[in-house]
C-alpha cells in the first residue's frame, strides 16, 4: 500500500483506538475496585417513578451518606438491562411486571406467590434482590371518564368487553406489546378494541378526559384519576397480576452497604394506593417537583 495511506490509516486507527478505550474504560469504574462511591438509582418514564427515584436517592444520601446518581426516563426493559449490566444499582419495580414482562411467565394472581417467584428468579438468575414491598399495588387499569362509563353502564372489564368493538383504546407503548397488556387482555376477556392508539403515558389522562380516546391503559395509583373525574373499571375476571412495588437492589451493592437493606425496608408496607395517588397528584395536578415532594414526604414521616 502506498506510503501516504499508512499515515492516513494511522489516523483512522488512532481514532478507533480512542473509541475502543472510551467504551472499555467505563466498565472498570463501577463494580471492580472495592466499595463504589456512588449508588446509581434508576427510574422509569413516569411521575411515580420520578418520585420513587427521588425517595430512594434521599434515603440513601441522608441515611447512608453515600452519593447517588439518578437516571430516570428509562423504559422497563432498558432499566432492567441496565441493572443486569451493573449500570444501575437500585430502583422500584412492580412484582407483576417482573413476573410477566421480564421473566415472561404466565399469570399468577396471588400477590405473595408472585412476590416469591420474582424474588427467587431475580436472585438466582440475575443476582438482584427484592426487598420488602412498600404497600401499594400500581396495577394497570382500564380507565374511562366517569360520565361516559355511567352513561354506557360500564363498571367492569367484562361489561367493557361487550361494547369494546366500538371503542378506541389509548395505550402506552409498553402496554400495547406486553403479555400483561393489550394483547393478553383482549384474549383473556375475548374481545377486540375498535382501535388501539399508541401514546405516551403522560398524555393519556388528558386524552381520555377530553374524549379523544374512549378508554386508556392507566395506572391505578395515578393522581389524575380522581383529579380528572375518571373511573377505574373492575378487573372482574382477574386478568392483571398484582403489581406490588418494592425496591430491587444488586447483590454487590448490598454486600458493599449492608445497612442499605434496613434503610429501604423502613418503608415496607408504608403506602396505600390512595396515599401514593395523593403524592402523584402533588406532582401531576399541583405541578410540584418530584424532588420537593419526596423530601417533604420523607421529612414529615421521619425517614430523613
Amino acid at each position: 500500500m502506498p506510503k501516504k495511506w499508512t499515515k492516513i490509516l494511522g489516523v483512522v486507527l488512532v481514532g478507533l483506538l480512542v473509541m475502543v478505550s472510551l467504551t472499555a474504560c467505563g466498565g472498570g469504574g463501577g463494580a471492580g475496585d472495592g466499595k463504589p462511591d456512588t449508588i446509581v438509582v434508576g427510574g422509569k418514564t413516569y411521575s411515580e417513578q420520578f418520585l420513587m427515584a427521588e425517595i430512594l436517592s434521599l434515603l440513601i444520601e441522608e441515611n447512608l451518606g453515600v452519593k447517588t446518581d439518578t437516571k430516570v426516563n428509562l423504559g422497563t426493559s432498558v432499566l432492567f438491562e441496565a441493572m443486569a449490566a451493573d449500570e444501575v444499582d437500585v430502583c422500584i419495580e412492580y412484582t407483576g411486571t417482573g413476573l410477566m414482562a421480564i421473566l415472561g411467565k404466565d399469570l399468577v394472581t396471588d400477590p405473595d406467590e408472585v412476590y416469591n417467584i420474582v424474588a427467587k428468579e431475580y436472585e438466582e438468575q440475575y443476582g438482584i434482590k427484592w426487598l420488602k414491598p412498600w404497600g401499594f399495588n400500581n396495577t394497570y387499569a382500564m380507565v374511562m371518564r366517569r360520565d361516559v362509563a355511567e352513561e354506557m353502564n360500564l363498571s367492569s372489564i367484562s361489561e367493557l368487553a361487550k361494547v369494546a368493538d366500538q371503542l378506541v383504546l389509548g395505550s402506552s407503548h409498553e402496554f400495547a406489546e406486553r403479555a400483561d397488556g393489550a394483547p393478553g387482555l383482549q384474549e383473556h376477556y375475548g374481545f377486540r378494541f375498535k382501535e388501539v392508539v399508541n401514546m405516551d403515558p403522560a398524555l393519556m389522562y388528558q386524552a381520555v378526559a377530553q374524549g379523544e380516546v374512549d378508554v386508556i391503559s392507566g395506572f391505578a395509583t395515578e393522581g389524575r384519576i380522581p383529579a380528572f373525574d375518571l373511573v377505574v373499571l373492575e378487573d372482574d375476571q382477574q386478568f392483571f397480576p398484582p403489581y406490588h412495588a418494592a425496591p430491587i437492589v444488586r447483590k454487590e451493592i448490598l454486600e458493599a452497604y449492608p445497612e442499605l437493606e434496613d434503610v429501604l425496608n423502613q418503608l415496607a408496607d408504608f403506602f396505600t394506593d390512595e396515599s401514593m395517588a395523593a403524592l402523584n397528584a402533588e406532582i401531576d395536578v399541583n405541578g410540584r417537583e418530584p424532588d420537593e415532594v419526596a423530601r417533604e414526604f420523607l421529612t414529615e414521616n421521619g425517614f430523613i
Partner: protein
Amino acid sequence: MDIFSYLLNNPDRVLDLAIEHMKLTGIAVSLAIVIGVPIGIFITRYKKLAAPMLGLASIVQTIPSLALFGLLIPFLGIGAKPAIVVLFLYALLPIIKNTYTGIVGVSPATIDAGRGMGMTDMQILRMVELPLALSVIMAGVRVSAVINIGVTTIAAYIGAGGLGQLIFTGIQLHRNHMILAGAIPAALLALLVDFLLGRIELWLTPKGLHK
C-alpha cells in the same frame, strides 16, 4: 406558567446539562471527522469501495436512533459510552459522503496541473484537492454536527443525560417550560456550533480561495 420560568429558575441545571450534551455530541462528531474524512479520501482512491461504504453509512443513518440505542444496551450498557458510539455512527454519513463528493468534484485539469508541477500524490491531496474540496467537506461537517445535536437529545432515553433529560421529563410532567428549557438551549447550541464551524472553515481556506 411563564414559559421561561424553568430556564430562569434553574440556570445551573440547564448549564450542566448543556455541557453534558456538548460533550456527547462533541466527542462523537470529532471522532466522526477523524475517522470519516480519511475514509472519504480513501474511497476516492479505491472507487470500487465507494458505493458499499456509502451504502453502509446510509443504512446506519436510516435505523431509528432510539432503536440503535436500545439494541446496544446488552453490549455497551447505558449512559455516555453507548450514546457516543451511536452518535458517532450517525455523524459519519454526511462527513464521508461530502468528503468523497468534494474531492471527486475537483477538476481533473487542476490535478493535472499539479502533477505537471511535479507534486507527489500527498502534496496534491494537501495542496490541491483538500483546499478545493474544503467548502463541500465543511458543509458535510456542519450538517452532521447540527443534526447530531438534535439526535443527542434522544440519548437521554438510555440515561446519557444532556438536554434531552429536560425535554422528556418535561413531556412526562406536562411542564412546557421544562420542555423549552431543554429545546431552546439545544437549538441555540446548534446555531452556535454552525457559526463556529463556519469561522473555522474560513480560517482553513487558503487566502487565494477566499471569495
